[in-house]
């Protein structure tokens, strides 16, 4: 690949750089000009995190050839305002609380600025269209739209009211400015992939294309002899423990013999460039024997099902027994039985998983996005056979996590490569790697049988939960426990019988996700509550009012609640608002 010298006019300054012919504008900005405010979220023009302005128009710089940008005027987030000369759009993003993880923020701000330069009086629809190419997974866009509207007003010279009040005595009850919002609106916040160290290598992982297979051999010799490849490591290279897991240590960093899901790591390569990493990975030869796989938990529970783990496929059985379930049903005037299923959900944070590891005076330092640095420290120490005081995890700005960045992702592989090469190593997931390998919200199959009196009061609840745990435990048992205890939501019932099963399959791994086991339950108990209301001639609000937990209630696990129960108050505050103009929601 030949190199080419190009001149780019970025933020009003013309810079000459030498790039390979196939460089995209995003890489030219980030790797050659050090402007890391534009982010790589997908590399396919599908998320908008890489948005920059070319001749005043927002474009996806990750699919825009750098050579095409020659002779055009490029504006990045760094060019529209810094700490001292903050642009009204940046300022209003801070003021209105439109900044959360900050990864999509530079792109959103540039799309907004381009809109306001063209249309000083945008209506809400125009604002929403203008940012429709910028995915944000944190904010829900409401405050973003509000901020853009406020910035438009400010740019037109109108006074914009501020939420902020100088705190007199502390901050409770006041809206305060997020401490990290200024660097996030100016593009200066450092996410892992924004960081580089001298002499740094890049890493990548070879992953299984099969959901279930035996590894007969892995031959890394082709990768090791490839120019620029500095390490090609497999399970046998791990100096300490090749098992991790927050609850059950059932997962290998690198497969020894048995593949259990598509995307499972087999080998890791470190090389001088990202391109050489890909080439090195392509030179590794793996001899697989495909094995029968099982994806449906009910199938996996059968005695003759393929075994995902030698310990058996039922990872966890959580029971709740309260009162006497038969007695509860005997007292019921109506009994409702329903079956539900819930689907797998991907978190899809806009920042893919990333880590940069390096050895500093005998200490392994790992910079990364994370929701659980202490857990990482313990596991990486155990993997490297280090004492924990020789491992330091530095959490950088984290571009969304929603639960899945509580798991180890890129960190152990970067650390392992750095340990073997003695050089800093950066590993950033591609979007495909992120979607294929990250832990998901568990898919559930649920069976409910609820009994109630003709006055609509619950008397008995029998619930069976079958959770598709995927190939490894991750946070599954804890999620399952929460699902079991939340099986009938915020309602009181004297007789409860819950059987919850977490089942290993060859499906993607289930793990932590917002709500942690409760969201799967809510549509079930709420649908049945509506049904009880219909059968008893009660409004949806009234049937809930009769059953909600209150001081003196006992929960499914027999905890007697004393104070601080907000359920009835919540119902009161929200009733009448769900269906405006209708008496359906009135108390």
């Amino acid at each position, binding site marked *: 690949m030949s190199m080419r010298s190009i001149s780019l006019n970025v933020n009003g300054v013309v810079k000459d750089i030498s790039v390979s012919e196939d460089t995209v504008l995003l890489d030219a900005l980030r790797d050659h000009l050090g402007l890391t405010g534009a982010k790589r979220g997908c590399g396919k023009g599908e998320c908008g995190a890489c948005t920059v302005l070319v001749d005043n128009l927002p474009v996806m710089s990750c699919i*825009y*050839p750098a050579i095409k940008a020659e002779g055009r005027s490029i504006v990045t987030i760094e060019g529209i305002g810094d700490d001292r000369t903050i642009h009204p759009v940046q300022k209003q993003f801070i003021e209105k609380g439109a900044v959360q993880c900050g990864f999509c923020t530079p792109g959103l701000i540039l799309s907004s600025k381009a809109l306001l330069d063209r249309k000083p009086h945008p209506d809400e629809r125009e604002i929403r269209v203008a940012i429709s*190419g910028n995915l944000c997974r944190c904010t829900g866009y409401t405050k973003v739209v509000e901020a853009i509207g406020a910035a438009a007003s400010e740019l037109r010279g109108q006074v914009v009211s501020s939420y902020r009040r100088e705190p007199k005595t502390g901050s409770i009850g006041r809206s305060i400015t997020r401490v990290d919002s200024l660097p996030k609106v100016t593009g200066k916040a450092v996410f892992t992939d924004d960081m580089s160290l001298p002499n740094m290598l890049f890493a990548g992982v070879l992953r299984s294309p099969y959901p279930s297979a035996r590894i007969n051999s892995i031959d890394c010799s082709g990768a090791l002899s490839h120019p620029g490849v500095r390490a090609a490591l497999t399970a046998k290279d791990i100096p300490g423990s090749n098992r991790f897991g927050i609850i059950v240590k059932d997962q290998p960093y690198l497969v020894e013999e048995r593949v259990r899901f598509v995307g499972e790591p087999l080998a890791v390569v470190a090389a001088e460039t990202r391109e050489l990493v890909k080439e090195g990975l392509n030179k590794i030869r793996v001899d697989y024997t495909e094995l029968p796989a099982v994806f449906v938990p009910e199938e996996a529970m059968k005695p003759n099902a393929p075994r995902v783990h030698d310990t058996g496929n039922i990872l966890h059985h959580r029971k709740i027994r309260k009162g006497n379930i038969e007695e509860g049903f005997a007292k019921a005037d109506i009994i409702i039985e329903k079956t539900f299923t819930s689907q797998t959900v991907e978190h899809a944070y806009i920042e893919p998983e990333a880590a940069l590891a390096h050895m500093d005076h005998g200490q392994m330092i790992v910079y990364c996005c994370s929701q659980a640095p202490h857990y990482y420290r313990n596991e990486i120490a155990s993997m490297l056979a280090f004492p924990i005081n020789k491992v330091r995890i530095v959490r950088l700005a984290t571009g969304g996590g929603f639960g899945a960045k509580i798991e180890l992702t890129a960190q152990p592989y970067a650390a392992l490569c750095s340990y073997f090469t003695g050089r800093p190593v950066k590993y950033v997931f591609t979007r495909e790697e992120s979607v294929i390998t990250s832990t998901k919200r568990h898919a559930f199959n649920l069976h409910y049988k609820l009994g109630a009196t003709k006055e609509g009061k619950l008397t008995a609840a029998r619930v069976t939960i079958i959770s598709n745990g995927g190939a490894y435990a991750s946070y599954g048992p804890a999620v399952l426990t929460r699902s079991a205890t939340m099986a009938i939501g915020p309602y009181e019932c004297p007789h409860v019988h819950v059987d919850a099963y977490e089942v290993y399959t060859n499906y993607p791994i289930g793990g932590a996700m917002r709500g942690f086991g409760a969201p799967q339950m809510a549509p079930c108990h709420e649908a049945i509550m509506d049904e009880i209301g219909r059968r008893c001639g009660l409004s949806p609000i009234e049937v809930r009012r009769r059953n909600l937990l209150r001081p003196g209630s006992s929960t499914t696990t027999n905890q007697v609640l004393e104070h601080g129960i907000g359920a009835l108050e919540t119902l009161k505050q929200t009733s009448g608002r769900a269906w405006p103009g209708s008496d359906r929601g009135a108390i």
Partner: protein
Amino acid sequence: MRWETYKVARSLEEAFGCLEQFQGKARVIAGGTDLVVQLSERGADSGMVLLDISSISDMRGVKIADGGKEIMVGAATTMAELAQSEIIAKYGRALALGASCMGAPQIRNVATIGGNVVNAQPAADGTIPLLALGAEARVVSAKAEKWIALEELFLDVGRSLVNPSEEIITHFRFKPSAETGSSSLQRLAKRKAFTLPTLLVAAMVRLDGGKQFFEEVRIAVGPVARTPWLAREAADGLRGSPVSQEAIEKAGAAAKLAAHPRDSLRGGAEYRKEMVEVLTKRAILECVTSLGVNV
């Protein structure tokens, strides 16, 4: 490696000189919003040259030509420019609507109508309206140039008569909708941005001077075949018939009967078939009502 060499042509002469120089190893690229993604994913053969024609000024912009008898659209005009063009809004509204739905704003600012057509996808947001408008493409090579009607242009999914190593679509032309004519677009998709349509129907309608009868109707639908598809039976059935609810109902039913959508991630065949009828009726009705006719 995505590609070996990237060339930017400033004129058609320069572009054909380059195509000739590289003898089939060069491939024309415009906005590249699809091609760059594909090449990033699968990599390129060694020696591959991309020839960017999106900066050729003769190929950009929209104008009224031939004394008002035709609308001329440069193939390197971006989707955003089409969506904002007053000429297109007035004389080829379906195209403005299609262009404004495609991809996302950052994509529309770069993607061109020529690329949208040459890509030869069955439900492309620019192609379906152009097909309904009865557009022709000007296909130019170093030796020849010809106008090809859009319904003749497509061979299969992703394949057209245009050889991207030798030929360039420079322009599209179509007849402007007259006083008694209108066009419209109906788009069914799971989201508003970043999504290909589950179903796209564009209709072009011309009524007689008294706005009593359908004089000319074209209905384009995608994806219901391997190529962008014309609902000929439905359109033929309307020609000459009085403007009425009954006639529109019949056209919808005829389009449904003739369409053969398939199952895909974006929608089931059965659902799509039902919706061909619904969207066809809506598209024609919208054309008619925009002409001030109540049915």
